[in-house]
């Protein structure tokens, strides 16, 4: 599916949050959005899953502006895992995953064997088989995240949108979730706080700062020392990931003479 995000601008209560941003997303790629808190990453994602209407520019999924599509049709093209406070109403794991079928069902249609099979397969894919009847609220953080990914798999979207999927997870579960996302082979738009995770798991990065794109490209080309100093206000040493062929960054506070002397390299 063709994904076009072009010249998008967003204002919330007349404050400009996103200014003229265009993203190019190649099918099958994992595209990361990184940037400091408040840079507008999540706001940009919200325009893609039709929660926010951009005041200029457009988001097109499969050639159609998402705001010209029905909410349902848009939800058949993109699926989302957001960070949202859980409600006091208790659903079972199966019911949560079944929600993924919502955009595919008419008011009168009952769950078919296809739906049941998709829900089962999604749970299997995230290795949560057997948890069907557990209450979602009783799961651990990593299990919850996997169930939410199962829900989005049952939704069968062409584009996967993940907003900080590794938040509040321990390091084991952070890697587990991202390995899972990597293995799905679905075009993915993801926001991440951890630059090393973004360097390891993303094919292409956009660095968002002050509502605009500060840099874009492969992780190696994007996360330069100058950019990290300027956008993230920390100093950095570039190293190679010891076992994987990718960038690894070591951060430290900025010092006043930062522009005069390069930091000691190992």
């Amino acid at each position, binding site marked *: 599916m063709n994904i076009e995000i072009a010249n998008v601008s967003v204002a919330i209560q007349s404050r400009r949050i996103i200014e003229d941003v265009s993203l190019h997303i190649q099918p099958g790629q994992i595209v990361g959005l990184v940037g400091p808190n408040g840079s507008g990453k999540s706001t940009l994602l919200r325009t893609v899953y039709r929660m926010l209407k951009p005041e200029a520019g457009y988001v097109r999924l499969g050639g159609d502006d998402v705001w010209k599509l029905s909410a349902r049709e848009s939800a058949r093209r993109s699926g989302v895992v957001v960070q949202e406070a859980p409600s006091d109403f208790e659903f079972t794991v199966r*019911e949560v995953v079944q929600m993924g079928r919502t955009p595919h069902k008419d008011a009168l249609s009952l769950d078919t064997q296809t739906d049941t099979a998709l829900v089962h397969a999604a749970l299997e894919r995230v290795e949560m088989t057997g948890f069907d009847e557990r209450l979602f609220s009783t799961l651990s953080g990593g299990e919850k995240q996997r169930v939410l990914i199962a829900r989005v798999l049952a939704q069968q979207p062409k584009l996967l949108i993940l907003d900080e999927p590794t938040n509040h997870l321990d390091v084991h579960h952070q890697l587990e979730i991202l390995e899972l996302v990597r293995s799905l082979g679905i075009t993915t738009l993801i926001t991440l706080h951890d630059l090393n995770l973004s360097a390891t798991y993303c094919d292409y990065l956009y660095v968002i700062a002050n509502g605009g794109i500060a840099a874009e490209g492969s992780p190696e080309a994007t996360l330069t020392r100058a950019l990290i100093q300027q956008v993230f206000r920390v100093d950095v040493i570039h190293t190679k990931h010891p076992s994987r062929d990718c960038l690894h960054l070591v951060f430290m506070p900025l010092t006043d003479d930062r522009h005069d002397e390069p930091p000691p390299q190992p």
Partner: protein
Amino acid sequence: MKAQPTPRVARRWLLLFGLVFVLLAAVVLAVVIGPVPIPYDMVVRIIVSKVVPNAISVDWTPVQEQIVWMFRLPRALLAVLVGAALSVSGTALQALVRNPLADPYTFGISSGASVGAVLVITLAAGVATGFTLSGAAFIGALITTIIVYIIAQQGGQVTPGRLILAGVAISYALSAITTYLVLRASSPGSNSAAVALSWLAGSLGAAKWEQLGIPGFILLATTVLLMLQSRQLNALLAGDETAASLGVSIQRFRLQLFVLTSLLIGTVVAISGAIGFVGLMIPHIVRFLVGADHRRVLPIAALLGAVYLVMVDIIARTLIAPSELPVGIVTAAVGGPFFLWMLWQRRLTGVLR
């Protein structure tokens, strides 16, 4: 994967049909019990003879027929309608604002109805027939609903928090007006304060056949519409962002839910007065039993709400006979301790999920 009926699914169907049977039995019981006891088989035969004329030879007196057909049956059926309506609208409103404490009265709807009714009772005591009373209550509920929704809006968006705050604030303001009207009316030689107070506590005593048609139709239409949108209601419980990402037009859906439930509540409150507790607690009891999925919660809530109010009305009529307790007092007095007991018995949670 072939879907086999599991014991859990079988138990849910058993619960559904069991409740239908219990409801029928409760309605017959409500018609049997009273100052003049009428045997249950006679009750059934009178009802059948009314529904299918000439099917059964008459072996009862015209008085017995009148008691069954003109008084007790419409009252029992009104209890069915009001109980189901409050319970269904409570379920929908809790999903609408994603708050387990929401009920038909959180949004000022009943306070608005109360002001309308009490105005008529205290200022126009002589002309306060059942219909002007219901009309005034309904108009009060309607105006309040519109005001609450307008206040809760901000830039075309209605958020759950603003809706609750607007509803609660208006509710308090309207309660103050109601209290003032009742106090002002309480003078020696006038019973309008007592009439107003008993209306406020809720009563099913004024039930007439003519009053059942419109609420019955609205209840049926609303319940069916809500059930058709069970998936969207479920998605809404998962959060606004999630619901939007699952293809729910949240703002439009919220407005539609609010209009539907307000209409339903306004209609039944206008006839029965402000009966509390049912709309708040029955949805929770149902979720205890069958989980949060609205495809199961809505029909079970409608049935259980109906059964509950029919039973409670029997108690309200008989406990201090020949006088009657306002049914709203009994719903809370019986239901409160029962609900606390259920909370205590956490093992009840999810037996039929």
